């Protein structure tokens, strides 16, 4: 998919970076973006409680790319959701971009998500009734963007789907759908992008294209990238790697 690469490469040109904040240089802001301390998360399963995460501590700096790995069911998605403020932890503190999201209420977290957080899901999560363009417009509309259609069109061009604007998810291939999802994730110019197995449903080759795209956007826009993956190749391209096992998170160097 060299086409999409060259498209994403176009972002290197200043014209594509029309908003100053989007062109933050990684080196210019090496401050802490995310700080997790003493995080514990439990869910109630009828009578028992299941402890998914226990005493988790780590810090992530602005502009970094981080991979989280672990066996299926080890709690990766749960951790990602907590960091993104989709759920509140049972105990512990999470600070995102200087705000203690573990202490915000749902609406305040929503506002935070609208402006600073982007998501890419393993199962894409596109709305089947909407076209690619409308799917990308969703977060822009929510954020009150003045010209959501133009911005969305631009983003879809950048992920190489400029010709498929009006197609619905059912008419797109898996890789194409994931690219729509990535365009949507970057639409609100987030300071951090969370991706849950973004290549999990894709073949190796397409998976690679998606990784390239994510890495490129991370580089160009200085977006912090936090992703869960089973893909060693993708994990190894990230600056840092965490492993979850038995509710604990450990950082490790090199491949698993």
């Amino acid at each position: 998919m060299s086409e999409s690469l060259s498209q994403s490469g176009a972002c290197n040109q200043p014209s594509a970076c029309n908003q100053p904040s989007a062109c933050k240089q990684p080196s210019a802001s090496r401050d802490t973006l995310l700080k997790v301390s003493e995080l514990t998360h439990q869910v109630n399963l009828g009578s028992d409680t299941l402890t998914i995460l226990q005493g988790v501590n780590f810090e992530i700096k602005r502009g970094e790319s981080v991979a989280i790995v672990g066996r299926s069911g080890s709690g990766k998605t749960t951790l990602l959701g907590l960091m993104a403020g989709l759920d509140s932890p049972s105990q512990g503190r999470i600070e995102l971009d200087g705000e203690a999201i573990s202490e915000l209420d749902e609406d305040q977290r929503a506002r935070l998500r609208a402006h600073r957080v982007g998501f890419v899901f393993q199962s894409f999560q596109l709305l089947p009734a909407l076209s690619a363009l409308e799917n990308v417009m969703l977060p822009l509309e929510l954020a009150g963007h003045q010209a959501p259609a133009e911005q969305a069109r631009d983003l879809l061009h950048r992920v190489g789907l400029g010709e498929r604007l009006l197609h619905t998810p059912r008419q797109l291939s898996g890789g194409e759908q994931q690219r729509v999802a990535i365009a949507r994730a970057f639409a609100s110019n987030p300071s951090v992008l969370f991706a849950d197995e973004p290549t999990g449903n894709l073949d190796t080759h397409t998976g690679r294209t998606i990784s390239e795209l994510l890495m490129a956007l991370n580089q160009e826009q200085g977006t912090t990238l936090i992703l869960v993956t089973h893909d060693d190749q993708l994990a190894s391209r990230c600056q840092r790697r965490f492993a979850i096992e038995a509710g604990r998170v450990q950082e490790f160097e090199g491949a698993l």
Partner: protein
Amino acid sequence: MHSRDKLASARRDLRERDVRVVILALVVAVATVATIGLFAALLQKTLVTSASAFLAADRQLEAEHGRPIPQAWWQEASERDIRTAHMVRFSTMVFGDAGFQLVSVKAVDDHYPLRGEIEMQPDASADREFVGQGPRRGEVWLNPRLMRLLALAVGDSLEVGNLSLTVSGLLLREPDGGFSMASLAPRIMMHADDVAATGVIQEGSRVEYVALFAGDESALEGYHQWLRPQLEPGHEWESVRDGETLSRSLQRAERFLLLGGSLAVVLAAVAVAVASREYALGQRDTVALLKTLGMTGPGIGRLYLRRLLLWGSAGCLGGLLVALPVYWAMAEVLEQVLARPIDSTLELRGLVPALVTALVSLFAFAYPPVRRLQKVPAMWVLRSEPGEASRRAWSDMLLAGGAIAVLVWLYAQEVSLVMALLAGLTMLLAVLALVAWGLILVLRRVAGGATAWRLALVALYRHRRSTLSQISVFAMTIMLASTLLLVRTSLLSDWQNQLPEQAPNHFLINIAPSDVAGVAAFWSERGYPLEALYPMVRGRLTELNDQSVRQAVSKDREVRELNRELNLTWMARLPEDNQIVAGRWFDDGARVGVSVEAQLAERLGLRVGDRLGFTVGSEVITEPVTSIRTVQWDSMKPNFYMAFPPDSELRRLPATWMTSFHLPSERKSALNEFAVRYPTVSVLEVDHIIERIQAIVRQVTQAVEAILALILAAALVVMAAVVSATLRDRQREGALLRTLGGRQQLLVRSTMLEFALLGFIAGVLGVLAAEAAVWALQQRMFEGDVQWHWGVILPIPLVSSMLLAVFGRWQLAPVLNVSPMLLLRRLE
């Protein structure tokens, strides 16, 4: 499939929301149509019984020539399972302590009355009682006024001819109290078996024998067929529907029920159509999957057909389970309103329309989209083709329109109703198409923005397909419900106008010309002024175009007015509620001509220009028919078959005068004084008839309201079903929007706004279409005035937008208070 597998698959089906909606739609369809059908049948029965009470039976045979009804006729009736009773009517003098009085006697057997009840008091101070039997042998009941005139009390004896009877009660009301000018004298009621002993009836006495019949409609009709050839001129067969007073109100009530039932049918069809279409769309993935697993098209067709049949049965069963208790509850309420027991046995006939509706909706609305599932390509599993769903919309719509027309026609057998409904619906669809087109054009220009308004507009555009289909269905539903609402409003006000509170309830007859001024003064001094006074000359219609009427009017027409003396009058101006339908009213100073009542003219086959000869005493007056006019028989004012101009020949003949006026029941004692002052004037008290008509109108009104409530409930369910058709998509979208940072407040507001807008547009369109339909209906069915009903037009769009906003909020509820994380887990 084994039956256990079938059960399992049925249970699996039930877990699918769309299936539940289809079944719910069917349940609602069957429940509303069945309830209305059952209730209409019950109401009709009750109304006929109420009206039958005017005859104290379903049919009466009167022998006015003084000969008893032949034994064979009684026997034939009982062989046909018809219940009978007999009575004898005659006039005689009775003697009490205070003198004597001419009374009209009604002697009844133990079976009288067959319908309705007698209202009496065992004592002047006792409570009123409703009893199902007349006085026992040796006893007599007197009308209270007669009681006062004769200064009698309960326990005294009264001489009737040679027989002395004990006064055992006050006769307040007879079910067949009647409204005929013949029964003018005060009434006593006694037992038929005592008549012979009085010795009053002798050869040549003026006496009427009456046979009462009650039973099955078809048995009665059959009996009448059998009897007809044997009837003699002195015999008169009377049935309820010939009775003038109530027929118009009853007819309208029946039409309203028909209309309500038809609307229920249409609503049901719409609900089933929407739900099953949604189901079919949702099933495409499954069908494609089945195909990849090797199932053939016909096999899939059979599979879904079987499911439809299963749901059809489930829907019918469920519908009946709802309809029956509701029906019994309504019957209970009706019983309380009427304060008398009614026969609420189930009329299975009432269920047929419901089952037919279910069947037709299933096959005309649910089957086509489901059948097309066969054609879903296996490739669908991997990728869908655009536009597949909408291609057959036109043929679907034609089929749907045809099916609705046939259903309504089957139900109502009324072409004008079908036409009015279809015209209204077609217009609605045409306007909808226009509005939709305009809406899309406008909405397309709305750019994003984080205000609830903008988000709502964007969402309307984004969901344009479901927006349009929802607006169409809502508008149709609103149209149907408001049609009924509008018709009900005009129906009720019409009834109210027909019998206002101050309707005349007493007639004064036989006023001598010299007494006219005095009588008028008597009542206006007491604050109850008389309505118009009419002269009255009794005469028979004997000649038609210089031939005897007997020869001129063909034998098979039964025209009882020919056997009777008619009241002939003269008047200068046409009464306000009469209407000329042919010819023209008398010019000022006219001397010739006669104006004939329209129904009688029709029965006699009269045309303007025919020459009528009337015999009055020994004179014959011959006049040409100059106009034919309709008369409001139920207006409770003096009405005349024959009216002459003021300066006609009739003027030379001896006339008496009659009039009517309103006298409240608490002032009835004034009648005693009046009877003493003007002994020759007859007073006809019809207050109880008016009260009974008002009671029947009240009961019909209740029924009308109940049916309206039922239809509104059905409309609500249809709307809820339509809203919930997009439930899954909406919730998924809500969840995603929250993940993307949509605040709850914003989501709630924009969703409610979106639905409110939808409801408003649908409300405006629907209510306007309803006006059009009502206009068409009123022209043909209810003959009322056409006008804009602002009281309905304005609130309905508001109500519908509020309602839908609530629906929208309710739909969103599950995704509001849960963490987005859980939502995402659920979505996967």
